[in-house]
């Protein structure tokens, strides 16, 4: 942090520190959790180390057009936990049952919204949850390629697409702004579970 103390550089660094206060806060929290007890020394050391990390390893700012909604976020989290349990036991039994391994496949899914944050969240969650694994993701177009462990149990390529689009819808409802929701053709008061026909519309365009 000591090199040429030109006034502009210092000011730029300060601005970055202030602009990335959430990262600073998260890093300090992690530090306190790692030490296991909350004391002034730990909190200040965490903040100092966080500042060093933010300044030494600068990351591009995340442009997120979003807001947090509590109820849809709870829906997302609840479904995630339930799906994680189901998916884990399914894969576990697939691994243990005798007989040949299931038929795998690669399915292409076009997401509604290719914004980085939502694409990343959907990709991470869809790797953890349904019987799928993201092999390739294209930021520009919002297309993901998923490997499916057992294509028949997942309801074929159309079933996989429907599941992933529903997952994306839950993510968008939890974190996206009204603008994004309107652009993605998701009416506000709806429930994620009632949107079955909506997923089918995107499928039709994909079978080129």
């Amino acid at each position, binding site marked *: 942090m000591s090199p040429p103390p030109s006034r502009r550089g210092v000011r730029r660094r300060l601005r970055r520190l202030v602009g990335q206060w959430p990262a600073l806060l998260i890093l300090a929290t992690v530090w306190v959790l790692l030490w296991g*007890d909350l004391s002034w020394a730990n909190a200040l050391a965490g903040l100092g180390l966080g500042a060093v990390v933010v300044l030494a390893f600068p990351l591009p700012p995340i442009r997120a057009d979003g807001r947090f909604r509590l109820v849809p976020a709870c829906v997302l989290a609840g479904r995630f936990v339930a799906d*994680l349990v189901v998916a884990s*036991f399914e894969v*576990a039994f697939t*691994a243990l049952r005798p007989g040949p391994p299931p038929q795998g*496949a690669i399915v292409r899914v076009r997401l509604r919204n290719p914004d980085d944050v939502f694409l990343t969240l959907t*990709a991470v969650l869809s790797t953890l949850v349904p019987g799928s694994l993201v092999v*390739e993701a294209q930021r520009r177009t919002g297309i993901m*390629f998923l490997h499916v462990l057992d294509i028949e149990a997942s309801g074929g*390529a159309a079933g996989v697409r429907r599941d992933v689009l529903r997952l994306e819808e839950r993510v968008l409802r939890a974190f996206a702004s009204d603008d994004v929701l309107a652009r993605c053709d998701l009416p506000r008061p709806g429930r994620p579970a009632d949107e079955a026909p909506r997923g089918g519309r995107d499928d039709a365009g994909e079978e080129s």
Partner: protein
Amino acid sequence: MTDVEPGTLTAVADVAAALCLLAGAFLTFAAGMGVVRFPSLLARMHTVTKPQVLGLVLLLLALALRVRSWSAVAMLVLVVIFQLVTAPVAAHLVGRAGFRTGKVDESELRPNEMDPGAVDDDR
């Protein structure tokens, strides 16, 4: 939290911890079996992301139920969060690297919608 009366509450917590330990051990075992038994790289990555993650979460949950101290629980929560965040990324990178270097037998994938000709042509 250690000064809870040694009555029903601790007994319930202990039983729940035991069940979580058993389920977590089963899932972790199944994940290991999957890595051995599945024939392809991508199928193996599935066992690394799903049963393994939930297995670890259950084992740590059991630990939290048994230890009952906030500082330990905080640390365990941290482990769970990092596991949830990093496991899919690691599996994705391994799978993608395998795909790009031709370590994946694409003839076994049906359907395979990753045809080079089909990519990027519609937009």
